[in-house]
């Protein structure tokens, strides 16, 4: 069973950062992306949790509020688009979980990651607000990503703040507060003995990967915790090489991790 | 091993665990009961009850210390006009069913028994009237105490009690018009100086809702807790808050209220906000405390009704169900027993009417004639029984005590206390008990050496007996020499019986009663304890160890407590015997101690 992913070049920002500041603009940007997909008769697979929530929520709202739909379509007409409804939005991890795993994933596994202890960061918008996500996973006790990571043979560890926010949206407002939030989780992961952190959202990656060194220097802690996207973990298990996986672009170096798996980095 | 637990008869051929009296049938007689009911009160609840009972065919006497009827609205009235007066004048059926209204009147005398209470009324300017009634229902309305003084405030146009506001809302005048100054901010205060009650919080929320309806108004509701444990209160709370009533919950602090001239300032510490808040109020409404009706202690003393800790009718007893008092034939409904709403009071009135009809029926009832038997030759007219009966089932007629079967519960306290032993309980007369004790546990002989310790336990059927049965059901270990004697109340075990138990060869005797606060006969457990203490002293005097006689209390569902008590008793007795001359000498309780034989 295969799912084909088509790249839509004209996608713009999903609008998520606009929600707190300008709700109408938020709705408009999300609707634009939805309309683009609808034009091509496609459902949307999102690569970011926040985008997932923005697009899903907008689709949800539009399907329930005829006035809002009319309003938005009037604006979309300026760029020659119209959104009727019916585009389904799903996060890529959810897609994997619901449509592809476990069998189709298992057949592709070439390397066992049993050496590694991996903590999963669910974050906020992958699961919440729950009413728009069809209960595909449990908000208070989520399992879907754990399940996917476990398919590689890696040991998925539990830790207290698994569901907690990364603090990302606060970064432009108060850097210190945002980093304190992320720091708490890094501390917990350290204590739980994690070898790597699994994320499914670039926002979260910015906090844990991009800002890890800053957090370390601000508070004098040391983590050296590689932050991997879920596809990178699955890819490692499937035998893809580090260039294909873009591991060089991870801020926290993954060299040690790779050598533990017996992979000599190029 | 112990036979059928439910069996009352004593089985032969195996050692009986529980000694119970065989069920025998009481002789019955028919007695006549009055079909008149005395209802004390004047509000909606009393009126509803009178109405209902009259409809069932009873005659009603309505009495209250004040004029009949009360103002509609307010806590005791209904919206459409309230009270006995308004009701009575409109319901002609009352005249047909003979509802007589004796208000205002005062009850000067009260005696008698269920089915035949004698009441003497005094009405101003008239001679005393006597009535015989079969039942009494206390349905008087409680008093609402003015709330101003505890807050250090004086009532004014802007500082009202809740009842005053309700009146104002109903009549459309007074506080709400407030000429010259718009009603911008209203503050309602419930509790703090007394525990607030859902019934008055309901009234407060309903009034606050009406004020919040005007879009210009800010309405604050200050209380310690929003008490939603009452019908519809959760919904009402939400509705009020949805309509703009701001709930301020203050646990641990009190609001500070100052009134200077026209200005009222309310300040408090909002815990959720973490700050002190001050607001100027255009209207301040204070909740009143519900207090017992004025004549409560007077009536209680006269009728022998127990009062609760807050002074309302109905004692603080675990077996007192909502509308019952400690006396058969006397009930209490509505605010007479505590703060409550009119709706609840009316429901209770309906329930009570059923109870009344259960008691009085058509006016004739078959009652037991010989539940309590009096030996007139022995009775010395000391009136101990009359004074002691916790159920007021004994009265005094023609120079001898009369036992009223409708009120008697067969607790046996009178039989135990009678100094002349003139009273016997039909179901467990002393002689019978003694005979059985001796028969089952004959005085031990030399051959009994080495036998298991014999323990006789008198267990109250309301608690210890249930626990003993439960323990047997659970298979809990017990001393093999344990024998249980069931009694209707621990208070029916007199000292003579305890001594007899020893004489019949018991190594130890136990009296197991209900907890003192749970005794269905109020004082039975305490009386038993006192008797045990007395006998223990006597035992010591004659050289027997005090520990051979044990008093304990437990609950009905306490098998483990029971098992523990009896096992510990066995151990205590074993320790007492160890090292004594028991093995060689004759066992205690025989011969040389009680040689009367």
């Amino acid at each position, binding site marked *: 069973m295969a799912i084909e992913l088509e790249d839509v070049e004209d996608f713009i920002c999903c609008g998520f950062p606009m929600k*707190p*500041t300008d*709700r109408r603009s938020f709705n408009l940007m999300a609707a634009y992306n939805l309309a683009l997909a609808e034009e091509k008769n496609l459902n949307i697979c999102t690569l970011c949790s926040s985008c997932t929530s923005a697009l899903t929520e907008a689709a949800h709202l539009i399907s329930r509020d005829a006035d809002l739909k009319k309003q938005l379509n009037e604006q979309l007409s*300026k760029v020659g688009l119209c959104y009727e409804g019916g585009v389904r939005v799903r996060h890529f991890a959810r897609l994997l979980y619901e449509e592809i795993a476990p069998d189709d994933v298992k057949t592709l596994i070439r390397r066992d990651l049993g050496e590694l202890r991996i903590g999963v960061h669910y974050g906020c918008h992958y699961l919440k607000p729950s009413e728009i996500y069809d209960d595909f996973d449990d908000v208070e006790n989520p399992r879907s990503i754990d399940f996917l990571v476990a398919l590689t043979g890696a040991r998925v560890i539990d830790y207290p703040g698994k569901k907690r926010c990364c603090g990302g*949206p606060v970064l432009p407002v108060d850097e210190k507060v945002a980093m304190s939030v992320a720091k708490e989780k890094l501390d917990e992961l350290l204590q739980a003995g994690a070898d790597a952190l699994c994320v499914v959202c670039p926002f979260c990656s910015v906090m844990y990967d991009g800002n890890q060194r800053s957090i370390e220097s601000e508070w004098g802690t040391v983590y050296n915790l590689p932050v991997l996207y879920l596809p990178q973990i699955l890819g490692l298990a499937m035998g893809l090489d580090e260039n294909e996986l873009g591991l060089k672009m991870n801020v926290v170096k993954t060299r040690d991790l790779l050598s533990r798996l017996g992979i000599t980095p190029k | 091993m112990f036979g059928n637990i439910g069996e009352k008869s004593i089985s032969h051929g195996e050692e009986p665990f529980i000694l119970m009296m065989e069920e025998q049938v009481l002789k019955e007689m028919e007695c006549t009961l009055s079909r008149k009911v005395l209802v004390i009160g004047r509000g909606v609840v009393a009126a509803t009850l009178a109405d209902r009972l009259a409809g069932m065919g009873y005659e009603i006497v309505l009495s209250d210390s004040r004029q009949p009827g009360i103002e509609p609205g307010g806590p005791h009235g209904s919206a459409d006009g309230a009270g006995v007066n308004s009701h009575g004048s409109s319901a002609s059926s009352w005249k047909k069913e003979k509802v007589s209204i004796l208000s205002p009147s005062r009850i000067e005398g009260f005696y008698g028994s269920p089915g035949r209470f004698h009441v003497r009324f005094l009405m101003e300017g008239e001679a005393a009237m006597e009535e015989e009634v079969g039942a009494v229902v206390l349905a008087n309305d409680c008093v609402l105490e003015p709330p101003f003084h505890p807050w250090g405030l004086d009532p004014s146009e802007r500082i009202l009690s809740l009842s005053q506001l309700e009146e104002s809302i109903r009549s459309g005048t007074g506080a709400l018009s407030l000429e010259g100054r718009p009603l911008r901010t209203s503050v309602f205060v419930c509790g703090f100086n007394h525990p607030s009650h859902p019934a008055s919080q309901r009234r407060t929320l309903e009034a606050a809702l009406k004020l919040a309806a005007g879009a210009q108004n800010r309405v604050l509701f200050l209380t310690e807790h929003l008490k939603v444990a009452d019908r519809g209160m959760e919904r009402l709370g939400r509705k009020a808050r949805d309509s*703009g009533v701001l709930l301020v919950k203050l646990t641990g602090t009190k609001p500070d209220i100052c009134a200077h001239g026209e200005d009222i300032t309310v300040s408090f510490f909002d815990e959720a906000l973490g*700050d002190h808040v001050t607001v100027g109020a255009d209207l301040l409404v204070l909740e009143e405390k519900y207090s017992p009706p004025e004549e409560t202690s007077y009536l209680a003393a006269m009728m022998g009704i127990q009062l609760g800790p807050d002074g309302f009718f109905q004692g603080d007893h675990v077996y007192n169900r909502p509308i019952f008092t400690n006396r058969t034939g006397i009930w209490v409904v509505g605010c007479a027993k505590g703060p409550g709403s009119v709706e609840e009071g009316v429901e209770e009135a309906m329930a009570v009417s059923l109870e009344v009809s259960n008691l009085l029926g058509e006016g004739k009832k078959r009652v037991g004639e010989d539940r309590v038997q009096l030996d007139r030759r022995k009775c010395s007219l000391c009136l101990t029984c009359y004074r002691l009966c916790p159920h007021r089932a004994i009265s005094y007629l023609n120079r001898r005590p009369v036992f009223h079967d409708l009120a008697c519960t067969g607790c046996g306290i009178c039989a135990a206390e009678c100094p002349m032993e003139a009273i016997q309980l039909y179901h467990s007369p002393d002689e019978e008990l003694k005979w059985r004790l001796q028969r089952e546990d004959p005085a031990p002989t030399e051959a009994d050496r080495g036998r298991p310790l014999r323990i006789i336990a008198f267990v109250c059927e309301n608690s210890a007996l249930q626990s003993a049965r439960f323990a047997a059901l659970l298979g809990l270990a017990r001393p093999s020499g344990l024998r249980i004697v069931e009694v209707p109340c621990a208070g029916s075990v007199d000292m003579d019986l305890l001594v007899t138990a020893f004489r019949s060869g018991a190594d130890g005797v136990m009296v197991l009663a209900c907890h003192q606060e749970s005794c269905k006969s109020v004082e039975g457990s305490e009386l038993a304890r006192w008797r045990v203490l007395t006998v223990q002293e006597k035992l010591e005097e004659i050289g027997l160890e005090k520990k051979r006689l044990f008093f304990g209390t437990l609950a009905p569902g306490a098998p483990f407590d029971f098992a523990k008590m009896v096992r510990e008793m066995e151990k205590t007795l074993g320790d007492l015997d160890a090292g004594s001359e028991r093995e060689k000498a004759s066992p205690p309780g025989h011969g040389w101690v009680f040689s009367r034989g």
Partner: protein
Amino acid sequence: MGQVNLDQADPHFARELAREPGGEKIALCFTCRTCTASCPISRVNEKFNPLRIIRMALYGLRDEVLKSDFIWLCSNCYACQERCPQGVSVAEFMNLLRNLAVREGQAPSGIRAQMELIKGQGRIYPLDDFDNKKRAKLDLPSLPTSCRVVKVLFAEEGESQMSPGVE
């Protein structure tokens, strides 16, 4: 704050909020503090306390709320909203307050910068040729470095934008 005087507060603020999306049920709050207990920001910073903010709004402390810096600390994680036993949309409420603040010209500089980026470039992280060079090295197709669409979509800015239902 120390001492709050309600006579200077706006008694209509709560009702105004109740009419907008996100404010519907705030009056139902019964101060259980579940929201604050679940909040990741509250854990590390005392200034941000969702319950306190709701309370301030209910009391009508309009300026204190809308001009504050602490309402911007919300990370929109929705934990409060998921757990509120009264069904208050706490997270949406925070968004509502912030929307109002922006309408009145109050927003921290970082947020304003972010808004400008999105409305001007259609992205929160704008791309330039340098990024496309890096992509080329990884055999990834290049992406547009400017966005015409947003400029058209947001062309009629400057009018009062935020009352829902009004174009």
